[in-house]
């Protein structure tokens, strides 16, 4: 029952979220079917925005249950702070295009700690940095959702890496250098791929404002292929260069920093594994005193 509800939440929010993000493509088709729906379709931009927000809220309600212990909450808070700080410190390399270092930690933390932590890290990084710099707006649910998906999908790399490592058994032991390289390549390609996808997804928010479904409504024969083609032209012209920079930056950052960051995260994962168990003998009010929580260190 418990796992069933979780699975249904993930499944339903993913399907509805993807459908809502893609609405500029399918709505004109639906609107052509009758005149009455055309009138409704004008309201759809607002309705879809509300739907994306609600979808995100339902998913967040489920995922946040993985952040109940003090350790997890403190870990997430500090990681979000580091990510938000990295986003705005000009560390080096005056970032070309959409280059942004935030995805390294989102992907790697999702990969090491699990999809729930990755989702929370991705979504809350964007929320916290928007709060700090004044970037709150109606685009925020879309950004949070997409960055959350990046972290949520990061554990999908695990079976792939295991599979690839099993394909090259001659490389030696479980942690031979060759196996580590496989891990790095998969993670770096994954981060690069999301760099592109993040841009394309965020464009979907902006696109109805730029050319707009309303522009398509009055044309009687516009087909799905036409719509997709228009989007591709719009995307290539306005943002492909920008997004390629982000994809390349993600790839390079994960490729060069990934091994060290994963090592640090794994080490702290072991250290975070302590569990605070109150001693029942000390629980009586006369003897109540703060029990050391540091046994596990």
């Amino acid at each position: 029952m418990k796992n069933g509800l979780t699975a249904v939440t993930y499944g339903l929010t993913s399907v509805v979220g993807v459908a809502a993000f893609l609405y500029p493509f399918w709505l004109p088709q639906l609107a052509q079917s009758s005149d009455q729906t055309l009138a409704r379709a004008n309201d759809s931009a607002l309705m879809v925005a509300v739907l994306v927000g609600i979808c995100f809220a339902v998913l967040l309600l489920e995922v946040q249950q993985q952040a109940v212990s003090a350790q997890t909450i403190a870990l997430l808070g500090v990681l979000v702070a580091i990510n938000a700080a990295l986003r705005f410190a000009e560390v080096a390399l005056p970032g070309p295009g959409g280059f942004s270092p935030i995805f390294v930690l989102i992907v790697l933390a999702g990969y090491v700690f699990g999809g729930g932590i990755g989702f929370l890290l991705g979504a809350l990084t964007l929320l916290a940095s928007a709060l700090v710099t004044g970037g709150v707006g109606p685009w925020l649910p879309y950004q949070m959702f997409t960055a959350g998906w990046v972290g949520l999908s990061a554990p999908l790399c695990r079976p792939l890496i295991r599979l690839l490592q099993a394909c090259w058994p001659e490389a030696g032991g479980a942690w031979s250098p060759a196996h580590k390289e496989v891990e790095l390549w998969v993670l770096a390609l994954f981060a690069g791929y999301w760099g592109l996808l993040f841009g394309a997804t965020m464009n979907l928010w902006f696109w109805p404002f730029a050319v707009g479904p309303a522009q398509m409504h009055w044309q009687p024969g516009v087909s799905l292929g036409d719509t997709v083609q228009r989007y591709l032209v719009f995307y290539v012209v306005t943002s492909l260069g920008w997004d390629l920079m982000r994809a390349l930056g993600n790839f390079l950052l994960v490729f060069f920093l990934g091994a060290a960051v994963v090592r640090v995260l794994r080490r702290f994962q072991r250290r975070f594994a302590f569990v605070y168990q109150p001693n029942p003998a000390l629980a009586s009010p006369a003897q109540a005193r703060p029990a050391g929580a540091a046994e596990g260190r």
Partner: protein
Amino acid sequence: MTAALPPETPPRDRARAASQPLQPLSWAGWAAAVATIATLTRQPVYLLLLLASIGAVRWRCVQEPEKHSLSSLRLGLLLFASTALANWAMVRAGTTELFALPTWIPLLGGAWTLEALAYGALNGLALAALLVGFSLLHQVVAVRALLRLTPRAYYPVAVVLSIAVTFVPTTLLQLQQIREAQAVRGHRLRGVRSWLPLIVPLLEGGLERSLQLAEAMVARGFASPAAPHARRAQGLALAGFASLVVGWLLQLAIGTLWWTSLPMVGGGAALLIGLWHAGRQHPYTVYRPHPWQRRDWIVLAGALLAAGAYLLPVFDRSTLFYSPYPTLTGPALDWRIGLATAGLLFPALLLETR
């Protein structure tokens, strides 16, 4: 003792009450109304009225200018111009041809029309209104106050966020210190690989501090009790969401009949009850309460009035969906909707900060 308070509020207290900022929730309602209107309408008069209201509120309520080099006004102007130009350059629709480029030029070739320019400009107006409106929200409400708007159902998220917002300045400082320490050792930033000596100490230090923070939280009694009814709240919210989606799809496919709106209303109610139920498991107390004043209610009512005029089928809603295609004509106007937009002006009338 507080028992000796005089029956009427002394004038000094009244003056202090007048200078107290508005509730963050009423500002959030105001911003939500701006977002609703800007997303819904593409009618130039309404959009200009919306922008004028935002401008008036900004003029009255924002004291210090923005610190960024690229202020939101300039950014809004840039966005407006680029959206208008992009649509003009890319869309080949409309009948009023201004000039034509040879058709062998990819993308840009063909007739450049007045309608495409007008449509782009309208979209640009809407985007600029969103941008300026929300940057204003940021200038008048403190970050902490915005954080406190997080619903109670999202208590863990709120704790994580407040830790993060507190640690951002420390982290920036730490990054600066690490950079200086590495620079003393001859470290120079060249290429991605040279980030390694900066990122790893930052991460190590941050995680170390998060361990200490976790221990401090546990020592001060932070513990999340196993929420007994979390699953029920979760299931209720999920069912409400599913019903909402089904209702909307039904409305799109069949149209607005009395029974197609039932799933939406029921779903929305189930969702709200689920969230309320989840929030009840996290009781909290407020150290410094910020009481609701009459001004807060007025601002909220004004925002509701403005958004309601655009949302509810009371006035002529067909005037909202103005389209310049295929031939540019003057937009139809319902003056009552335009008048209701002025509901957004209430913060400017009530706050005397200038």
